[in-house]
């Protein structure tokens, strides 16, 4: 598979995630779309690492190829931490306003 298919797939998933962030009003759904975007990027990174593996330089330096996959690993680490804190915030928001509507959070108005 040429890399262009993976690029296209990852781009599509990413843009679907963006559309989801812009379209929905529920905070949890928005959060999930952010996770989707992160995953699209992960996929692309892994694809790129395998693309480099196919080149002569990649064959000479295998460490270079696994750099991207280690990166993906750390992205997942950060995503996990972020989810836990984010959900805590959402729960607090729900407790205060009894709704998950992001439009309620308009204290930044004017």
């Amino acid at each position, binding site marked *: 598979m040429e890399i262009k298919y993976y690029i296209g797939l990852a781009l599509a998933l990413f843009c679907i995630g963006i559309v989801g962030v812009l379209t929905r009003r529920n905070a949890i759904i928005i959060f999930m779309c952010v996770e989707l975007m992160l995953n699209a990027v992960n996929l692309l990174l892994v694809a790129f690492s395998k693309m480099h593996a196919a080149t002569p330089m990649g064959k000479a330096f295998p460490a270079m190829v696994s750099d991207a996959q280690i990166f993906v690993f750390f992205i997942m680490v950060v995503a*996990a931490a972020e989810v836990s804190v984010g959900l805590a915030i959402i729960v607090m928001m729900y407790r205060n306003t009894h709704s998950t509507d992001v439009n309620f959070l308009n204290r930044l108005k004017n």
Partner: protein
Amino acid sequence: MSTTEILFWFLSALALGSAIMLITARSPVHSVLALIVTFFAISGHYILLNAQFLAIVNIIVYAGAIMVLFLFVVMLMNLNASAEPKKHRTLQLAGFISGGCLFLVLVAALRNADAVNKTTELVTGQSGLIGNLGRELFKTYVIPFELSSVLFLSAMIGAVVISKKEK
């Protein structure tokens, strides 16, 4: 069409389809389930690319832990389809269009590049194996690895502090 290709297209279709379901589902629970399917599809892609470690980690961490957490919260708030008000029609349309435009722009940008025709090594490859990855992780990237544990600690403390009930 070899098996790998068929698998690739199938997994891609699955991923895209469930992503679309994620953003269009009425009920939040349906969205969560759609996202889980997406994660599985992506893990399938990882296996196809022979990134075995990442595939398993993806399923365990994302689909297993994070999504379950989401599900817990959704259940906790007792959200159902009627709970969410609809966003303004124009804004929705604007969001949809801008997302679509972004996709088109990026695709068009890469259209003529030579590099996009490079092949990726499917199915085979040493780099994705657990042993190799682990060796890299603990040799070159051991410090970020340790720091990530600190990150988790702070996230835990943060989450606990945020959700404390006011006395």
